[in-house]
């Protein structure tokens, strides 16, 4: 299997992972890379969760900044 073919197959499974579906591959290397992808995806979700906790406070600060830039 060429690198491009593997990249295409991996891309489809990564998209499933990000969509919350269960990715799968019978190809040993792609299956290994999906395990790494799961790890990275978990970190992305943890970071997004931290962001969600700051979302409302940041929104208020952002509005203050925008109002200062919109005099009158």
């Amino acid at each position, binding site marked *: 299997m060429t690198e491009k073919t593997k990249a295409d197959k991996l891309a489809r499974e990564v998209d499933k992972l990000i969509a919350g579906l269960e990715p799968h591959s019978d190809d040993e290397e792609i299956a290994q890379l999906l395990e*790494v992808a799961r790890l990275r*995806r978990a970190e992305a979700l943890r970071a997004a969760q*931290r962001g969600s906790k700051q979302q*409302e406070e940041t929104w208020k*600060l952002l509005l203050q900044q925008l109002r200062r830039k919109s005099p009158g």
Partner: protein
Amino acid sequence: MTTARAYYETAAPRVAERPTLSELPSFTEVYDHYFPKVYAFAQNRLNDEDLALDIASAVFEKAYLKMGSLRSPDSIGSWLFAIARNEMVTHWRKEKPVEEAWTQATWELSLTSQHAGPEERLLKKEEAAALARLVQQLPPREQEVIALKFDAELTNREIANVLDTTEINIRVAVFRGLRRLRNIIDKNGLYQGGQ
């Protein structure tokens, strides 16, 4: 974000007049949907939570001021993360030596000061810190593609638009980045240099 939306509608009528939003998602909808992703993208690229908040705030400020120039709702993801990318490039150009020192200090602190809390939570934090450190060993282009894929959750076409390249190149970059990361983990372990 109901509270934030109500605040926006009642407290900032003057700012709401600025962009033309008639055929576009409202700014609050864009903010609600994308803020956690922009934060995650910045946090995982910078390894600094406070800085990530500053960057995310700056991104949405710029997005608000420029939103009238957005022609299609379909391109909003790539448009927003192009702004995010520019914000981080600007930051790195201005602050790189300081940022590197601060990042290092943050790592040292995060890896030595987590005494309290359940063991599982501690392991997850250490795992995240270790993974972030390993990701930093990837070539910058692969780091960026992986962050746009996993943190920003952009499609390959959107990432290609942000980076002005082709979808094929993005798919190959994700493949090579994950393979390189797997090789680093296989060779050194997840906790290489982190404890």
